[in-house]
């Protein structure tokens, strides 16, 4: 091996100094032949004969020289270098062509790299925990309950104690938030995670500084007031102070000791969530400011994750969990439902993973389609170029170049532009992905790290495209007969076949483009539908002010009085038309699946409940402020006090499920163990996401069911930032210590709108790229066709062809292809409906608007692209043309 290596380096050296070597060899050969000749002459030959014999004896000098070079240097690299140099020269000679190709590839490859970068970060990259393969999250079988919170804390404890299949099991509540204050910093609201003590041990992560908390730190509720900071919180609020360990920090006025800082790359088990702190769950009452779920079996308050014991299959573990759940539902029939369990991979908001995966894979397919369209475009471009260069290529064949070398040369050109395009694409994608990583929407974000996999994909796409668009033209060019090509010039030699190929390519391109245009129209329709979906409330013109009175330790009557006082104060602000409060606004969480019973039910078990409802606690005026229409009866009132009969407003679905067509007002039902009378009925709405089917909802007056958290819903006629300032001033004046967060309602809903928005952006970009490719493709083909047939068109004009005839001769073929391609594309888009359904809610590509829109767009693109060539064809001056060559 060493000697082989040495030989390689010698060759490399020779490769670089070969000119001198060749001189030397020439000298040697000349001297050799001279000696031979002399000897022959001495042997009695004539001078001429002697020289001839000497040459014969020596053999073919040129061939020997080539072999010599091959033997001495690196033939492959040498040829490559020659090819590359030649290709660069050729490409520089036609900058317009090169720019178009590089830009096309930049768009195609860039789009794919962006999509893959996101897919890689969201799906392929393992979680930043040790041994992520055997980490599972427990879910309920029916797709219900919250995205993450599925299990009550006592039930989690039962699962942890009774299971035989998990080596360890931890509970997480990722919705912790608190007003944080400490003597070195100002009050600010932070969001974090409450976990069982074994969380960090189970995940197998190490702290950046200090330590994590462990099961040994816990001794029952309230025993472990410890806090782990995220690296980001440590940097932003504690100036990355290495002596932060031991600092006392107040969360909702309760002291917690900072024990450590987590590593920057560790952010729990959710890919999109970046918690700012971790506290032990046994201290959640302090951290949450009073809300106790540790002893509440009916509150699904935690996410359960676990590691399987070695050799245990997820299936076996699921059976184990189901057996325990069945047992629990017998022991606690009023709270534990005995639902079936399943195990999923943590990281993507519970079952949202399915949607996210579907979305990303579908977008990947569409991005690849864009690249395929780009390649089809480039294939015809390259084929046309090869045809234009056929005289040059033929000359090279005639001069002894082998066809293999010709193919290699053309492929080298393709690879070079493709690598340039790929590099530009990856660079653009890198910029975009950096922006994406820095983007911090309130509902979580994704940090896209560009690892080698992303670059490898970029390179593979570049080389793959080069092969795809380079091989056909190269092969075709190498097949052409040199004699014919030199005799007849560029086009005529194999015109029929080449045009057939170009036709197919253009058609494929138009088909793909139509699919993508239709897809982006479908997405735009989805977006419009999402924006105008009947929500059961009107977010526009409403400001939300969230305040947590519970965090200040205010409960019961005092909190209610404060709430009333603040509502009155806000009502007095100029421009405010209506105001009310709710514990949470629709589509931002809140209790769901609360069992409702008929009057007279004695055993309040889940099996006896009539329906599961969403529950909101509202103040009088909320319904008006939210613009939720009251269909009958009355709003809740301040007179519905705790000592009066319990009342509620229900929605249509609730009323229909309970009492069918009978009037609901005055009816009664049981909620949380007590009888409640219906005083009003409101319209249905959306409570979780836009895709949900109608759900039951009940609104209870805050005067009868006080909750610490209130959201002021303020409808006003003034600009959001004006009213926000006044709200801050007014509410802060009454309750200066309560953390207040102000947002406009549409902003608050942006998370809900995110899927529709992301789909629109993703598909819109793809559609735009495809449209651009279609324009260049049609334009290229029409322009090329016209330039090739100038003479023919000239003859037609000279023979008296009308303008329409000229135009149809010039651009008829692309237009026909456009029609055929569009129809095929629309058909394909309809077939691709399942794919689109992964991206857009209620995707319907056969929608008349979409079909018409796609046809219109394609027609517009076709006209735009073929207008210039058509005009050129019309401007043909026969007399001028005929005189040419």
């Amino acid at each position, binding site marked *: 091996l060493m*000697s082989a290596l040495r030989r390689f380096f010698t060759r490399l050296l020779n490769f670089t100094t070969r000119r001198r070597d060749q001189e030397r060899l020439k000298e040697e050969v000349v001297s050799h032949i001279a*000696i031979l000749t002399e000897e022959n002459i001495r042997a009695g030959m004539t001078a001429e004969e002697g020289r001839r014999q000497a040459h014969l004896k*020596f053999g073919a000098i040129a061939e020997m020289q080539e072999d*010599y070079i091959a*033997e001495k240097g690196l*033939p*492959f690299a040498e040829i490559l270098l020659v090819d590359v140099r030649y290709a660069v020269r050729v490409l520089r000679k036609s900058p317009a062509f090169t720019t178009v190709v590089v830009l096309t590839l930049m768009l195609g490859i860039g789009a794919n790299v962006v999509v893959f970068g996101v897919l890689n970060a969201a799906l392929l990259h393992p979680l930043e925990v040790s041994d992520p393969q055997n980490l599972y999250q427990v879910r309920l079988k029916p797709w219900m309950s919250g995205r993450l919170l599925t299990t009550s804390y006592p039930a989690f404890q039962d699962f942890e104690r009774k299971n035989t299949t998990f080596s360890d099991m931890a509970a997480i509540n990722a919705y912790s938030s608190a007003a944080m204050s400490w003597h070195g910093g100002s009050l600010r609201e932070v969001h974090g995670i409450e976990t069982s003590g074994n969380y960090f041990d189970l995940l197998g992560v190490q702290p950046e500084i200090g330590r994590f908390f462990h099961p040994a730190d816990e001794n029952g509720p309230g025993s472990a007031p410890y806090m782990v900071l995220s690296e980001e919180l440590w940097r932003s609020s504690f100036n990355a102070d290495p002596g932060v360990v031991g600092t006392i920090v107040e969360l909702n006025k309760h002291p917690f000791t900072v024990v450590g800082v987590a590593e920057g790359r560790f952010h729990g088990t959710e890919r999109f969530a970046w918690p700012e702190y971790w506290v032990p769950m046994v201290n959640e009452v302090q951290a949450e400011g009073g809300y106790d779920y540790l002893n509440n079996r009916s509150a699904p308050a935690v996410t359960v994750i676990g590691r399987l014991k070695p050799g245990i299959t997820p299936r076996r573990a699921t059976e184990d969990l189901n057996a325990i759940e069945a047992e629990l539902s017998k022991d606690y029939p009023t709270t534990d439902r005995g639902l079936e369990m399943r195990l999923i991979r943590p990281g993507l908001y519970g079952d949202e993973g399915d949607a996210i995966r579907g979305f990303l894979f579908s977008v990947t397919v569409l991005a690849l389609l864009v690249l395929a369209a780009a390649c089809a475009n480039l294939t015809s471009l390259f084929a046309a170029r090869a045809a234009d260069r056929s005289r040059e290529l033929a000359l090279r064949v005639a001069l002894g170049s*082998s066809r*293999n070398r010709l193919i290699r040369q053309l492929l080298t050109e393709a690879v070079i532009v493709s690598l340039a395009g790929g590099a530009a694409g990856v660079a653009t994608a890198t910029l975009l992905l950096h922006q994406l990583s820095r983007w911090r929407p309130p509902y979580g974000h994704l940090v896209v790290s560009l690892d080698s996999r992303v670059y490898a994909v970029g390179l593979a796409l570049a080389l793959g495209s080069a092969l795809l668009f380079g091989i056909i033209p190269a092969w075709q060019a190498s097949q052409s007969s040199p004699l014919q090509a030199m005799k007849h010039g560029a086009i005529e030699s194999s015109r029929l076949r080449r045009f057939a190929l170009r036709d197919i390519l253009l058609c494929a391109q138009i088909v793909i483009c139509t699919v993508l245009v239709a897809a982006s129209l479908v997405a735009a329709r989805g977006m419009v539908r999402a924006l105008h979906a009947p929500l059961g409330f009107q977010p526009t013109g409403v400001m939300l002010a969230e305040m947590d009175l519970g965090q200040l330790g205010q409960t019961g009557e005092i909190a209610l009085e404060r709430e009333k006082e603040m509502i009155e104060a806000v009502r007095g602000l100029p421009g405010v038309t209506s105001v009310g409060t709710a514990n949470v606004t629709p589509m931002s969480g809140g209790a769901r699946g609360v069992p409702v019973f008929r009057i007279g039910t004695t055993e309040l078990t889940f099996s006896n409940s009539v329906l599961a409802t969403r529950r909101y606690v509202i103040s009088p005026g909320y319904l008006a402020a939210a613009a939720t229409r009251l269909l009958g009866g009355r709003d809740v009132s301040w007179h519905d006090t705790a000592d009066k009969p319990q009342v509620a407003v229900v929605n249509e679905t609730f009323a229909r499920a309970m009492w069918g067509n009978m009037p609901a007002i005055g009816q009664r039902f049981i909620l949380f163990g007590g009888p409640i009378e219906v005083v009003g009925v409101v319209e249905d709405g959306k409570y979780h996401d836009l895709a949900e089917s109608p759900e039951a909802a009940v609104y209870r007056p805050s005067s009868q069911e006080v909750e610490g958290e209130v959201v002021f819903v303020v409808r006003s006629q003034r600009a959001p930032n004006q009213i926000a300032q006044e709200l801050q001033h007014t509410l802060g004046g009454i309750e200066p210590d309560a953390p207040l967060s102000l947002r406009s309602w549409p902003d608050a809903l942006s998370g809900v709108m995110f899927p529709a928005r992301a789909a629109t952006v993703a598909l819109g970009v793809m559609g735009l790229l495809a449209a651009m490719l279609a324009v260049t493709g049609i334009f290229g083909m029409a322009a090329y066709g016209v330039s090739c047939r100038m003479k023919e068109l000239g003859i037609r004009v000279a023979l008296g062809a009308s303008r329409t005839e000229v135009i149809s001769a010039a651009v008829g073929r692309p237009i026909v292809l456009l029609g055929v391609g569009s129809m095929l594309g629309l058909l394909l888009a309809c077939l691709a409906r399942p794919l689109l359904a992964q991206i857009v809610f209620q995707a319907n590509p056969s929608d008349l608007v979409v079909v018409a829109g796609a046809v219109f767009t394609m027609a517009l693109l076709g006209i735009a692209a073929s207008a210039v060539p058509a005009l050129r064809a019309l401007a043909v001056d026969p007399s001028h043309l005929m005189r040419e060559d």
Partner: protein
Amino acid sequence: MQPTGEDTAPCKSEILQGTLDLMVLKTLDALGPLHGYGIARRIEQISEEALNVNQGTIYLCLVRLMQKKWIEAEWGTSDNNRKARFYSISKPGRKQLVAETENWRRIAGVIGSLLELEGAK
């Protein structure tokens, strides 16, 4: 120019290539520094024209041997006052020659006895 790979042997076959290498080494070992023509001439004489290769082929062998550092070369003047490159065997070349000779004898012996055996049948 034809694409030529590493394996494109200037001589007719692998064995021949090895043989020619050995012949060149032996020649240089026996006769001392020689120019290309001298080597070619000598091999022709020894093989009595049985080895029908072009003389140009010698230069490919010389390149190969140079790369392996088995021979060295320097410019000099030939008998008839021409500038010529003189090749001489190097130390590793001598070592290689010994090893190759050994090897060649062994193979020749094996082939010889094998052929005899075949003949006896």
